[in-house]
């Protein structure tokens, strides 16, 4: 469902644009706050995507690099917000969106500058490696059942729609414009009714694959001590976030065809629960990730001084394989998923053929979802 949530009925385009400007400004500020904190939630021995000794963070050099990054971040953010409001004042729909791109480009430039400033302080690469000699668990039956839940929601919805097929109008709205009136319709056909459910199943299947990949394929960077325990809890938090997103997607996409069964199907549905749900989800995800830190770094730090440190420095990936500090390309590394250097979670090793297959699959899912949405919806 993609109803225009900023709609306020008859209050006019100007009011909608004004509301949109505030929304964009809020997004830009939220992104700035996140990037302001991001250097603190990476592993203690990774600083602006460069491997450093953990005590480097407290040095004057590190504080200088961090300070310069944050000054640049907030200057670019202020310019981005100014672009949004200036564009809105000029009555443009597209100029305010340029504010988002301005901020993205500004943050990227600030990050690359900070990375260049950190590289001379990089720790010497180490060949020390440790590993736990126990097979990984695939999560067991309970994890499998948890992953099956979203599919069960979609299947139950499909069964309910089939049983109530005759109650579904010949033509029902699935998209609403800024004025609150429907502008996208679906017909009572298998693609029109079941299309959103199929889209949901494809997206959830991809999230399930990602969950199992995190569980089985990711590298355990720390194998011993408090840092290993924290890393394990971090991995569980990542899986928890994915499961919540799976259930959210299932609920949302099951809800779209069910709307057709309402008494007054042409009226715009209340979007408040969707907005509140999405906000709670986004804020909750950020809170969990900031609480754990990358690789459980903050959890380990909370256990006392020295707990986050280990004889082994870094995340076992060489600095030189991180292109622009963001893209990992290492054909000699057997890992497909590795921890991000800047940010939280995992990224692909583009030196591995499987990473390209996975990227292709992601693109395919995006295209398939668009095609299914196109088949099941029409404008008039």
């Amino acid at each position, binding site marked *: 469902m993609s109803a225009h949530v900023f709609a306020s009925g008859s209050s006019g385009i100007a009011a909608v644009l004004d509301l949109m400007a505030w929304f964009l400004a809020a997004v830009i500020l939220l992104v700035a706050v996140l990037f302001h904190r991001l250097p603190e939630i990476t592993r203690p021995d990774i600083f602006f995507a460069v491997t450093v000794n953990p005590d480097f963070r407290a040095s004057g050099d590190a504080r200088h690099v961090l300070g310069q990054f944050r000054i640049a971040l907030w200057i670019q953010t202020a310019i981005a917000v100014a672009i949004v409001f200036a564009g809105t004042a000029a009555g443009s729909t597209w100029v305010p969106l340029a504010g988002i791109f301005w901020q993205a480009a500004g943050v990227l430039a600030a990050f690359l500058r900070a990375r260049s400033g950190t590289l001379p302080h990089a720790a010497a690469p180490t060949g*020390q*490696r*440790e590993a*736990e000699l126990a*097979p*990984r668990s695939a999560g067991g039956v309970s994890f499998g059942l948890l992953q099956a839940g979203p599919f069960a929601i979609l299947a139950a919805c499909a069964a309910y729609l089939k049983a109530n097929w005759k109650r579904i109008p010949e033509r029902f709205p699935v998209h609403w414009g800024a004025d609150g009136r429907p502008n996208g319709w679906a017909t009572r056909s298998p693609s029109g009714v079941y299309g959103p459910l199929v889209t949901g199943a494809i997206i959830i299947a991809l999230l399930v694959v990602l969950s199992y990949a995190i569980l089985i394929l990711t590298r*355990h960077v720390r194998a*011993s001590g408090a840092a290993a325990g924290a890393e394990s809890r971090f991995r569980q938090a990542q899986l928890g976030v994915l499961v919540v997103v799976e259930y959210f997607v299932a609920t949302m996409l099951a809800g779209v065809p069910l709307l057709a069964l309402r008494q007054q199907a042409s009226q715009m549905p209340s979007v408040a629960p969707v907005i509140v749900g999405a906000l709670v989800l986004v804020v909750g995800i950020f809170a969990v990730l900031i609480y754990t830190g990358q690789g459980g770094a903050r959890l380990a730090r909370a256990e006392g001084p020295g707990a986050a440190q280990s004889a082994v420095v870094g995340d076992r990936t060489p600095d030189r394989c991180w292109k622009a500090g963001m893209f990992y390309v290492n054909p000699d590394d*057997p890992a497909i998923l590795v921890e991000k250097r800047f940010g939280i979670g995992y990224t692909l090793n583009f030196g591995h053929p499987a990473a390209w297959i996975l990227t292709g699959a992601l693109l395919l899912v995006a295209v398939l979802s668009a095609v299914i949405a196109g088949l099941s919806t029409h404008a008039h």
Partner: protein
Amino acid sequence: MTAKLIEIDLSSEVPAYAQIAGEIRALLVTSELRAGDPLPTVRQLAVDLTVHHNTVAQAYRILADEGWLDLRRGRGARVLPRSRPAGGGGDKKPHATFRQQLRRLLAKAAAEGMSPEALAHQLKLHARDVRGWLKGEA
């Protein structure tokens, strides 16, 4: 149950496969790994140690050839019950190889400044450990 760890050094002149086999063998000899215990898949251990799959596969094959591991396809690597080969047989080659390796190791330690007393102490400690393992096996 404590985690069984192995440590290797990729900058060492000893090949990674030999280090991996040596580390696992030490856990087997000391009965920290027992018959029936499963080992990680080749892929998992390769990812954790950032080495090629073939490196881990070679280490597993060495241990399988020595009779420690069962590598049947589809079942993963598993520790086999293995009794210690009887000593004092006609084959003197293992003893000669061991003597040669020990001699090199001692020479390296001495070259790095380790005193003869410290060397002797270490050898005594390890000899005591070995007696303990063999008693446990009996």
